């Protein structure tokens, strides 16, 4: 028996509401992400160019396979049957079927009971006083559902970091509905990986694949939210193809080198397995921003991080402090970019970082790291993360105003939490530039919003080119530095010396007085969601 509105309008509305609910849930998940903080760091393993592990059926020689359609004895290297043209990579046939059954039994459902912190735990006392009456915030227990992949050692399961954030208790449920208590071994928000341990008998780790390409299958436990009812579906198989490698800019993790596929995956599939046609693990599903787009952490990158998390070793990652991005409308306008060389752009620098101290500026293109040409953020990231903290300096080749510049930087150890300058954070969050206007009539002075990216978050929040931010928290601003000082001094719980190291869900609130062109002023609340939630790509 289901209840619901009963006209087509209502149906559309219901769907819209469901869609919105899904978005809210995702945002909720984003909020929950802050729990574990950026508490550990280690280099992402394996330069992408290192020899791929041949991990399927380790130790056993490859035997000829029979074609599932015509029965012809086929060489294992063939992609298509020589006799009937059958795609041998499709997961059908007796042997593949048996392997598939084993894989579908190996992936587990994760049920996490979490406690959201109270509002006063995450806001400055002043903000708490001013917002507590009109902010809806439900602290307390809630449940999250995801999937997890057995990996590396029997008893270890990998899922997304955000699933495990703030967990009070974690349970894994097998495909035959047996429930096992699990303990969280480690969470690494920087890479988006979380590891739990559960003594589940009879489940073997899935071996990692080499470079994934072509057909991949998602194995996971879908969850369907229907009004206030949660329907759990049994373990499901979803077909798709790899549509990209070394993807970045998803804001699902800071250090991204992601595999992209064309799966449409339902809720509950985060942390699920992507397997290739030989039944090896291609990746762990990190998120799906829309239908037909799914991102996964490649299995190659899982191994060392999962190992370190499982052994509870600190992840020692090198840190330069540069925000690497692909250029967009506002950056093109801000840095006067006419042509776009195929290199990542330095979008911003983290304050007090090695990069900020060195001769490096926002607007530089990063051409090469240590003499190796880098074309994408992910490639640059992989190369930068292979440096040794405190070790030999790394020579960076930059392209600045058409000229190549070299600088060398000694990386430090990546801190648990990376705080951007509040003004930089606001510009990243709004996907718009803030330009200082300190001349002309006093009424037209302030921080001018410019180059709002089409379809970006600022546009969603109804910021338009030419809007003027005239004051923040009641204090007039004309300069970015003043803005930074105001925010820093009013939020000692984040920017002060005694601030926590990032394992709590801290945020700060700004009330921005905005004067739209030719209109009256309005005051807009803005909640900082950096650095834990939006996960800026800072290396």
């Amino acid at each position, binding site marked *: *028996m*289901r*209840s*619901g*509105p*009963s*006209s*087509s*309008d*209502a*149906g559309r509305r*219901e769907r819209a509401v469901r869609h919105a609910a899904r978005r809210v849930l995702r945002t909720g998940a984003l909020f929950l992400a802050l729990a574990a903080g950026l508490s550990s760091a280690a280099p992402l393993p394996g330069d992408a160019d290192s020899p791929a592990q041949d991990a399927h059926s380790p130790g056993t020689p490859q035997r000829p396979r029979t074609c599932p359609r*015509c029965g012809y004895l*086929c*060489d294992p*290297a*063939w*992609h*298509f*049957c*020589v*006799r*009937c*043209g059958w*795609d041998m990579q*499709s*997961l*059908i046939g007796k042997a*593949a*079927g048996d392997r*598939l*059954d084993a894989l*579908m039994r190996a992936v587990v459902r994760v049920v996490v009971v979490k406690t959201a912190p109270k509002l006063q735990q995450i806001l400055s006392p002043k903000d708490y006083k001013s917002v507590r009456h009109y902010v809806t915030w439900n602290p307390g227990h809630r449940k999250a559902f995801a999937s997890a992949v057995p990996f590396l050692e029997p008893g270890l399961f990998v899922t997304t970091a955000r699933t495990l954030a703030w967990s009070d208790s974690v349970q894994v449920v097998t495909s035959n509905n047996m429930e096992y208590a699990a303990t969280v071994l480690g969470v690494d928000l920087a890479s988006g990986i979380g590891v739990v341990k559960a003594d589940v008998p009879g489940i073997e780790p899935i071996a990692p694949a080499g470079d994934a390409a072509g057909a991949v*299958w998602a194995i996971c436990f*879908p969850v*369907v939210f*229907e009004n206030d009812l949660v*329907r759990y*579906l*049994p*373990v*499901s*198989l*979803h*077909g*798709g193809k790899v549509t990209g490698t070394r993807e970045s800019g998803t804001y699902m993790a800071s250090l991204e080198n992601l595999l992209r596929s064309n*799966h*449409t*995956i*339902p*809720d509950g599939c985060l942390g699920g397995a992507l397997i290739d046609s030989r039944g090896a693990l291609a990746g762990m599903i990190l998120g799906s921003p829309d*239908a037909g787009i799914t991102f996964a952490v490649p299995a190659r990158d899982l191994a060392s991080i999962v190992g370190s998390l499982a052994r509870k070793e600190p992840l020692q990652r090198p840190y330069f402090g540069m925000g690497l991005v692909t250029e967009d409308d506002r950056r093109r306008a801000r840095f006067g970019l006419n042509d776009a060389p195929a290199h990542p752009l330095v979008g911003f620098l983290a304050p007090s970082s090695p990069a900020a101290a060195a001769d490096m500026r926002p607007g530089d293109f990063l051409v090469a790291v240590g003499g190796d040409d880098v074309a994408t953020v992910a490639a640059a990231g992989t190369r930068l993360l292979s440096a040794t903290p405190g070790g030999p300096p790394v020579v960076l080749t930059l392209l600045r105003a058409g000229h190549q510049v070299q600088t060398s930087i000694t990386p430090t150890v990546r801190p648990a939490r990376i705080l951007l300058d509040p003004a930089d954070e606001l510009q990243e969050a709004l996907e718009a530039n803030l330009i200082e206007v300190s001349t002309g009539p006093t009424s037209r002075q302030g921080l001018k919003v410019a180059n709002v990216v089409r379809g970006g978050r600022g546009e969603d929040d109804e910021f338009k080119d030419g809007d003027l931010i005239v004051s923040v928290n009641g204090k007039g601003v004309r300069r970015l530095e003043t803005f930074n000082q105001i925010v820093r001094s009013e939020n000692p719980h984040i920017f002060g010396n005694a601030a926590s190291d990032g394992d709590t869900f801290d945020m700060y609130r700004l009330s921005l007085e905005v004067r739209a062109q030719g209109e009256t002023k309005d005051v807009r609340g803005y909640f900082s969601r950096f650095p834990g939630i939006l996960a800026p790509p800072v290396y």
Partner: protein
Amino acid sequence: MMRRVVPVVLSAVLLVLLLLAAAVADENVCPKCGAPLEPGAAFCTRCGTKIEGGPARPAAPREDIRRSVVQVVAAHDQELTSTLGAIEFGSAVKIDSILGSVFAVAPGEFVTDSGVLTGSRNVTLRTADGRSVPARIVGIDPMIGIGLLSADLLDVPVVKLRAGGLPRLGEGLTAIGFPSQRRAGQTLTTTAGIVSGLHRAELGVHPIEDYIQTDASLPDGFAGGPVVDAEDRVVGMSTAWVFGEIVVLGPGPGIGISVPVGWMQRSLDWIRAGRPPRAWIGAYTLPANPENRALYGLPENVRRVIEQVFPGTPAAEAGLKTGDGIVSLQGEEVSSLTGLHDRLLRTKVGERLDLVITRRGRTMPMQITPVARPDRARFTSLDTLRFYGGLELAPQGDKALVVRRVLPGSAAAEAKVAVGDELQSVLSKKDLEHANRDNARWRQARTSEDLDRLMEMAYSDFDFFVGLKFKSRGGARHDLYLSAILGPSSAL
């Protein structure tokens, strides 16, 4: 002289050799991807290209399966009022027509989803080449979700059903149908996917569920269309949850569900046999979960538990009660609702069944004789309030009905109705029709008889709606609205 000739000859020989090698290579590489070919290859093993001149794969010419699929327009020739719509928008809502897909299972006989046809008396079939033909509803099986139509469209080829039945996990399937959205073109379309899982049940779409789950996101209008395998044999029928004009295909993104061919055939046999009475015992069951296991003290091996018993049914006569765990039916261990339904479908009305239940730790065998399944079974009015609202009422003398119990987390609890509150008045569905929320008539309900009479007026063919006004001892007033869409019941 020799010195001059030797290099020339040598180079000529080399050239010939090179040309020869090139010629040989030309014959033995794939014309598309350049990979070396296996001897006698019919296909390239790297890119799958067919090699001209290679041994041909014998392939029988195939009928285009898409010619078997036709669009159905199920028009509602009456204005259907909906209480839920009235509550949402303040007035009743008219339902026009539902678009779905059908396919030919016999010459002139077409199968579709039952939800597309329910409530409609005027059905038209529209072929891909633009012909419109009136169709007659032969029968609807709301339990399995199949509807059978007949129409004078004898030239539409009949589909081939897959004899082996269920597809394998991971097998590639194709759903065929007519999208109903105007901007989706409304022309015959196919959507590919793979089998995500089998035996999916208890999704709340039809009473008997044993679906094939695919990863194809189906467009609206695919309800009733065939799902075929690589050889164009039908393995299932796309199904949907339909209420009024709302058609929901699949419970979420990337999830499509279809009724497997085995169940479809079973349903068609039943419809063609003139829909003989089905066995029914009159009990509503729920899966045993940790909560009701603890509540009723059920052992681990019990998978289904009796939630409600309908009055005057074999279950009530045999003494079944809420909380009884079902151990076995006719000697077969019971693990799922589908299994129970399967057993009952194989039972004739009047045939005695052995039922074993467990109550408070004691195993009790009992015998039960099913009667004919009614079109619609109804709870008593007090049971209706308990089932949908989570509250129990008891008469206090002749003057009032008083809340005796409120189940935690229920609609009643959310409406802040508390134990001891007195029922004041009732707004029934009949009184809301042709009225709106604000001027509708609330009637006094002081006795069980009042309540029974008003609750009778709360039901329509499609849904159920009732509003209840309560007054607490302290004088606080609370309104409770209960409504539900009445699909065919999954009660046994």
